[in-house]
Structure formats: structure tokens, C-alpha cells
């Protein structure tokens, strides 16, 4: 809100953004409505980048050899096909931030999905933060925010489209991860991974049933089960919305809805607000608008999908996370703000939540494999329609377009192509074992569409941020630290019952693990109750790194951690000091366990992963490179993500700025 005059009247949208930021952990960015689109320059050469999250070299090679991907083959033959070195760690927010800024995490300050607050030792999201309104007026049960809350994109460094903007080169950047809220620019951008749902979660589904069922409402997402009763062929329930910033205590808002079930037919009518629609059993509703009222004349709009899973004998209704309505976004989704509304006008509602596929619903058996794929197919079809539209309007400069499908489906279906995975199921493998191949073919179709629509002056670049490998076994880092005396719990504590370091004796603890690849020292002067003196740091880090690299899995005899990286050896840049103290590069088939990243101490040091989330990418980056295909020969044998950024800038004849550490790949 810097620069806002005190007497300036808040516009309604800004006001809503402000108060939502306060309540739901979200925020606002001011003044976007007045931005004009940048880049009037007609560039002779155009660059189209298809960002296909998680495309893996090993699998791509296999499918290419089998002749399954004719358009990938054609592009590779015309120019370049190389493994693309991923970030350290090879997590999507980190990797895409490398690409966005053309540098390593030391330059953009995104080191992991999750960081920690050194004052509290608690995990915090790395990508964005929300700051509540500082001043509120309380009138009875009413709470009127008087000053602005704020939502901040925590990625540092300039995005490549901001550099293009300096040279008046137009760019459209669609759903690139690590760009929520979208950074200020006059280019057309739409936020991607990291964009929350309307509640401020990374996706919270609702499941209504009269069957006994539990699901995990996890850190930042998951789902909620609502016990309902079928009385007189009718179900009455409510959909939870964002917290109400206008009421004291910020209670959750709700929208009541009714389901009328036919006495015999497997079909039901659902009604709420001005919506009324009929679903057959096993049918998706398509997008439905929903409005959550705060106080009279103040409300926010969302969109969600209903899926009538079963009518009888048990009632089962799934409602997707409520996405921010792109036609009336309560929170910043795009630059300029009108871009979101333009898209909504053309296509109707669409997925705005960062990662649209509901992996939590599949993980919790709320959706089965077929249902999950049906939902993800909607995501894919939406993306294809929008890609086609953007290609139609692509006349100059750069177009970046993102696909999430390969990443999400590989996370959930790797177990069905890996016979050694604890969750491998022969029957399911027979039915869904070709899902990953099919997904790569879907990506091939997207490339085909691009090849058909672009002109000869367009350089097509296909890239992924990382590859994939099985996630068979999980390593409990905090358990290891505990057993080796680096972490100490208060006497009488049962370690397996602890979460969020609630029983840690910080006065005797030297190290702790938060996040998916990160280890931190309890450093004096940095952590709230720091113990390790700065002069002890280096020796302790080397000791820890050495010992961690020696950890072997008694079940397989394999090393769990291939390399424990010290940031001073792998990062550079202005934010090096914010890096974790050790970054773990796991071996193939391994990653951090489910519970360790949030400050827990499970009993087993290394445990099997029986879950559907069975593929992952937290290994040493050398093991799972992404891919780079381009219609131009590459200058570098082993390019990295940031080299693609430099390559794009050089294609437009732009001198590489000093903060971009990549070398031009083209």
C-alpha cells in the first residue's frame, strides 16, 4: 500500500482484497486496474515457451523410441533435445523461480515449498505471505478494517518478462508457477502454482456423505468431510467459504445448499442461491458460481464443481475447492486485472487455483483414479482451449504457457508403472498403467497445436522444470537428528506424538528439519533460542553433511541421501543468507517422509510410502533433469533452467543483465 494517500478513497475491489487478505491469509496488490499492457514493439522473431511441469527425460526417451510422440520427435530433429538441469532442490516453486529470474535460489530467495520462521521455528509458505490490516474499527460484533492488509510475492529478483518490458517487447505469461500474486508489470500475466483457493488454502475440497469417512485437512489444503443425513430424499448442507473479515473473530462464511434425490432414479437436483442443476450419479456439474456474503453489499464470488459420486445406498457428493472467480476476482490473479475478466468472458469460469487437479481427493479415496482423471481432463481441455486462443492472438514477443497435467499425474500414478513401489497394484496397473504415457501424448498434442498455429518466425521451446522418479521410501530427518543427538526433546516426551516441535528443548538442540529438502542449524543470533555459535557452524555443517550422506536404508542397502549440499558451495546471490543450512539431495526412490517436514518425529527412521502420491522429485537434481526441446540448436551441452532464461533474452537481442547468472543456451 506504499504511496497510497490517506485521503484516497478505497475502491470496493481493493477493499475486499484488503479484508480478505486479513481473514483468509491472502492479500491485495493495489492499482493494477490502471496498468496498460506493455510491449508495443513488433518483434521479427517470436518465442513460444510451453512449460510442461515434470516432463522426465527417461520417460520421454522411452516414449520417443516407441514412436508415441511424433511432434516431440519432430521438434527435437529440427533443433535441440537436451536434459535440462533442474534447480537445487528440484521442487517446482524453486525450479520455476530459477527460470523466471535466470538465477539460482540465492538470487530469488525461494529455497523450498516451505520455509521456517526463525523466531518460532514453525513452517511458513515460501512463495507468498499475507499481512493483516493494522487498524480495525470494532462496532459490536462488526469489525471494519481501516487500513490495508497486504499479500506479498516473496520471490525476489526480476522476472524475465519484466526485463522484456524494459525493451518494450510484449509478453503473455500464462500460469507460470511462483508468481502469486503476479508481480507488477504491464505485461499480460496470469498467476499459476501458489495461487490459493477462495478460502486461502492451496485447495480444500468438501465431501458430503452419510458414510463414516475421514480425510486429512492438511497444512494448507486437503479436504473436509461433512456428515449429512438423507431425510425424505433430501440432504441439506453448507459449503464453507472464506472467513468473514467484517465480523469479530473472523468466523467462517457458508452457503447453504439442498440436494433433492429422486426416490428411485440415481439422479439428484442441487440448488443454492440462484443456482439449480441436476446431476446423474457419477457426473460432474461443470463450473458453478457461488457467492459468500460478509455483510449486506459486501461479498466475494467463487466457482466450484460438484460431483455426485453416489446416491444410494450411501450418499456421496464431492465439491471441489472453491476457486477464485476469474470474472470477478476478489484477489489478484492477473496483470492487468482485466486480463482475468477477458479470459472469463471468452471461456466462462476456469481453474484459477494454482495446482488444479485434486490430488488430495484421490489420496483420501474421495475420488478414485477414474474420477481424478476425469477432473484432470477438464483441466487439460481448459488449457488447450486457452492455448489455442493465445496462439491466435500471438503476434509479437513472447508467449509462455503452462501445463500442470504431467506433474500431477506422475505424482499420483507412478506407483502403477513401478512394480517395486509399495502401492503397486496389479489390477489398477492393468487399468491405469498407461496414464503416464497417455499424459505425455496429451503434451504431444499440445505441441502439435502449437506447431500448427505458429508462423515460421516463431521459435518453439518446450521445457520442464524437473523430471520424476518413484517415491518408495521416506526419510524422517528429524528422527535421525533426534537419534544422533542433534535434536533434543524435553524429558518424558514420546517423540512419535510430537508435531511442530512442540516438545523440543531448544536450549539443547543444534539442528532441525523443516521443509522438504532443508535442514537448519539452531544458530545463535538467527534463531530465537539459538545454541550453535557462528564459529561452530562450519564444522557442524560438515559433520552433519558427512553423516547424512552415510545413511543407508537397511531394507535395500542403498544410500538415502546422495548429497548433502552446503549453500555456500551451490548458491550465489543477495539472498544466500536466507538459505537453509543444508539442502538434502535424496537418492532415487527416496525423499523426505510425510511427517518430518512439519516438525514431527515418527518412530521409523525410514518408512515405506504406501500412498497414491507415489512419484516425486526431491532427489539430487542430477538424477532427475527436466527436458529442453527447441526449434533452435543449443549452444550448451548441459543447459540449466536459468540458461533458458538467458537464451530467451538473447534471442530478442537483449544484453544479459548481471543478475541473470545463466548463460544463453541459444
Amino acid at each position: 500500500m506504499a504511496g497510497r494517500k490517506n485521503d484516497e478513497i478505497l475502491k470496493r475491489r481493493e477493499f475486499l482484497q484488503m479484508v480478505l487478505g486479513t481473514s483468509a491469509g491472502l492479500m491485495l496488490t493495489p492499482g493494477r486496474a490502471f496498468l496498460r499492457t506493455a510491449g508495443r514493439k513488433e518483434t521479427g522473431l517470436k518465442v513460444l515457451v510451453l512449460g510442461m511441469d515434470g516432463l522426465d527425460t527417461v520417460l520421454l526417451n522411452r516414449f520417443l523410441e516407441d514412436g508415441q510422440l511424433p511432434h516431440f520427435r519432430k521438434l527435437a530433429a529440427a533443433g535441440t533435445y537436451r536434459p535440462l538441469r533442474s534447480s537445487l532442490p528440484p521442487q517446482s516453486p524453486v525450479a520455476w523461480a530459477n527460470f523466471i529470474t535466470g538465477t539460482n535460489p540465492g538470487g530469488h530467495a525461494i529455497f523450498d515449498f516451505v520455509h521456517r520462521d526463525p523466531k518460532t521455528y514453525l513452517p511458513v509458505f515460501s512463495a507468498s505471505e499475507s499481512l493483516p490490516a493494522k487498524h480495525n474499527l470494532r462496532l459490536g460484533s462488526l469489525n471494519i478494517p481501516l487500513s490495508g492488509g497486504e499479500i506479498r510475492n516473496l520471490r525476489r529478483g526480476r522476472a524475465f518478462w519484466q526485463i522484456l518490458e524494459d525493451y518494450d517487447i510484449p509478453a503473455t505469461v500464462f500460469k507460470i508457477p511462483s508468481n502469486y500474486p503476479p508481480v507488477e508489470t504491464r505485461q499480460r500475466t496470469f498467476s499459476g502454482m501458489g495461487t490459493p483457493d477462495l478460502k486461502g488454502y492451496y485447495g480444500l475440497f468438501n465431501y458430503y456423505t452419510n458414510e463414516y469417512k475421514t480425510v486429512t485437512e492438511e497444512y494448507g489444503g486437503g479436504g473436509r468431510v461433512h456428515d449429512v443425513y438423507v431425510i425424505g430424499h433430501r440432504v441439506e448442507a453448507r459449503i464453507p467459504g472464506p472467513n468473514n473479515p467484517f465480523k469479530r473473530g473472523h468466523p467462517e462464511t457458508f452457503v447453504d445448499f439442498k440436494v433433492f434425490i429422486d426416490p428411485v432414479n440415481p439422479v439428484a437436483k442441487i440448488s443454492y442461491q440462484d443456482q439449480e442443476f441436476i446431476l446423474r450419479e457419477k457426473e460432474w456439474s461443470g463450473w458453478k458460481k457461488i457467492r459468500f456474503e460478509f455483510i449486506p453489499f459486501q461479498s466475494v464470488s467463487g466457482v466450484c464443481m460438484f460431483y455426485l459420486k453416489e446416491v444410494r445406498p450411501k450418499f456421496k457428493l464431492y465439491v471441489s475447492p472453491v476457486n477464485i472467480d476469474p470474472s470477478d476476482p476478489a484477489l489478484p490473479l492477473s496483470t492487468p486485472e482485466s486480463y482475468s475478466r477477458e479470459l472469463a468472458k471468452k471461456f466462462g469460469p476456469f481453474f484459477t487455483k494454482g495446482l488444479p487437479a485434486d490430488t488430495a481427493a484421490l489420496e483420501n479415496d474421495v475420488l478414485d483414479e477414474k474420477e481424478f482423471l476425469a477432473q484432470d481432463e477438464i483441466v487439460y481441455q481448459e488449457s488447450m482451449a486457452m492455448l489455442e486462443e493465445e496462439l491466435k492472438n500471438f503476434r509479437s514477443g513472447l508467449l509462455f504457457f503452462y501445463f500442470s497435467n504431467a506433474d500431477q499425474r506422475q505424482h499420483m500414478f507412478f506407483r502403477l508403472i513401478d512394480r517395486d513401489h509399495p502401492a503397486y497394484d496389479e489390477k489398477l496397473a492393468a487399468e491405469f498403467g498407461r496414464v503416464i504415457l497417455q499424459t505425455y501424448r496429451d503434451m504431444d498434442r499440445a505441441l502439435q497445436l502449437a506447431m500448427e498455429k505458429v508462423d515460421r518466425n516463431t521459435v518453439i521451446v518446450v521445457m520442464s522444470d524437473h523430471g520424476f522418479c518413484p517415491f518408495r521410501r521416506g526419510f524422517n530427518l528429524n528422527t535421525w537428528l533426534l537419534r544422533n543427538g542433534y535434536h533434543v526433546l524435553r524429558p518424558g516426551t514420546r517423540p512419535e506424538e510430537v508435531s511442530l516441535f512442540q516438545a523440543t528443548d531448544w536450549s539443547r538442540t543444534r539442528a532441525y528439519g523443516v521443509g522438504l529438502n532443508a535442514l537448519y542449524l539452531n544458530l545463535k543470533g538467527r534463531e530465537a533460542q539459538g545454541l550453535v555459535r557462528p564459529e561452530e557452524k562450519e564444522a557442524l555443517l560438515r559433520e552433519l553433511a558427512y553423516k547424512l550422506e552415510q545413511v543407508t536404508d537397511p531394507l535395500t542397502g542403498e544410500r538415502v541421501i546422495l548429497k548433502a549440499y552446503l549453500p555456500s558451495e551451490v548458491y550465489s546471490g543477495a539472498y544466500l543468507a536466507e538459505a537453509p543450512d543444508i539442502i538434502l539431495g535424496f537418492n532415487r526412490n527416496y525423499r523426505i517422509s510425510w511427517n518430518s517436514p512439519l516438525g514431527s518425529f515418527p518412530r521409523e527412521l525410514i518408512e515405506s510410502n504406501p500412498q497414491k502420491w507415489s512419484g516425486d522429485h526431491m532427489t539430487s537434481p542430477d538424477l532427475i533433469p527436466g527436458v529442453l526441446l527447441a526449434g533452435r540448436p543449443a549452444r550448451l551441452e548441459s543447459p540449466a533452467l536459468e540458461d533458458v532464461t538467458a537464451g530467451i533474452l538473447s534471442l530478442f537481442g537483449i544484453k544479459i543483465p548481471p543478475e541473470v547468472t545463466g548463460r544463453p543456451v541459444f
Partner: protein
Amino acid sequence: MVWWLNKAVGSLINLLFLPFSSLPPWVAMLVISLLTALLMLFIYKKISNQQGIRRVKNRLKASLLEIRLFQNDMRTQLQSQKELLSANLQYLLYNLKPLLVMIWPIFLILAQLNLWFASQPPRPGETFLVKASFIKTVDLERLNLDLEAPDGLLVETPPVRILDEGQVAWRLKVTGPVREPLVIQVNGERYQKQIPAGKSRLSRVSAVRVKRNLWQELPYPGEKPLPADSLLKRIELNLQPQRLSLAGIGLHWLLAYFLLSVILGLALKGLFRVEI
């Protein structure tokens, strides 16, 4: 009687809108608002006591002037306030009579305009609900019920019977041009419902067919009423609402109609020497 009255008004409006079917709906709205303003001015001039209104408005002006001139004279102030109230009441009474007369044609026109501006006809590929409401005594579970869709319509779902509300609903999809009506068979009786179709920018959309009843028929003049002895009370299509676009903002037709009629009425009152 109501049906024939509605039919007569409807025919006039249909004829009036015929030249505008391919133009933006705003054109027809402007024309009907202008005609409404003229009609209302005409009725008002004929029905109201124009001399009395002129007199009472003069009294109002005089009282306001007194209040301004004699600000330091409490007694005159109070008398002027009393006179102001009295003149206001008189003014309202003078308006009551023309209002009572005007309300009937306005109601008939509104019911017709609702057909033209309230809902969008479903386009190919779109789905909509058909809802049939029955009288309370009907047992929906024993009812012999069938839905016959004409060419261009596909019945996508079996019926949803909502017993305690006496309602049955289906979901239909438009697959092509629809020329014939939809037929609901109830215990062998056939009831038709028009399905709005057409690509013109301005089209007449009857979303509701009601049973013969004065107060039901008046607001829903789109189709001949269902027989009075029918088990069916109402057949309704759940269609997308239509909005008149003004600088990117969707405006409800009723608001547009009232605003335009009032503005045009006030603008033209001098021309026709109508004292309002």
C-alpha cells in the same frame, strides 16, 4: 379473458419489435421506453387534474419561498411548513388517480417485456432444466409421467421427483434447431411447453406456462394457460438470465426500462404541455 387481453397486448409488442430482431436489444428497449413515456404522458394529461396540479405546485413553490424569506419569523415558518405538508398531500392525491389508471397498462407491458428481455434462449450445446409443478394431492411416485422431447432436444437425465414440493425436474440439452414444443404426458394427458429457440439478438422467450388463474396468467402471458382442471400447476424452464450490456456492465432490463421511461417522460412533458 386475461389470456385474450395478454394476447392482444402481446401481438402489438410482437409487431412493434419485429423490425428490431436483428438489432441490439437496446434499440427495442429505447423504442418501447419512448412509447411508454408517450402513453403515460397521454394518460396522465387526460386523467389527472392538470389545473389542480399546477395550483398545488405553485403553493409548494410559495411555501418554499416563504421559508426562505422569513427565516427569522418562527410563526410564519411554522405556517409555511404546515402549508407545505398540506400541498404535498394534495399533490400526492392528484397523482393517485392517474397512477391507479396507469398501473394496468404498465403491468401488461411489463409482463410482455419480461418475455423479451428477461431470459436468453438456450443455444445449441447448452443445457437447462424443465420443472413441472403439480397440485398438492398428486402422488408423484404413482404418477404415469413421460417427457417427449422434439428434434433438437435431448433429455439428459431421468426425472428428479421432489415429493414434498410436488415438483418433477429434468435436464435437457439443445442439440439443434427446435421447432416443435416439448410434451409432458401426465396420466395420458398431454401438455405442451414451447421451447424458445432462434439466433436473433432479440427474441421472445416464454419460460413459464401456468394454470388458468387470473393472478398467475397476468405475469406469465407467453403461452395459453394450462387447463384449470389439470394436475399440472406450472411448467417452467430454468434459463440463463439476460442482461443489457452498458459499457461492460450487465443491466437488468427492468432498471433500464424504468430509467429510460422516466427520463424520456420528463424530457417530453414540456413538448406535450403536461403538468407533472
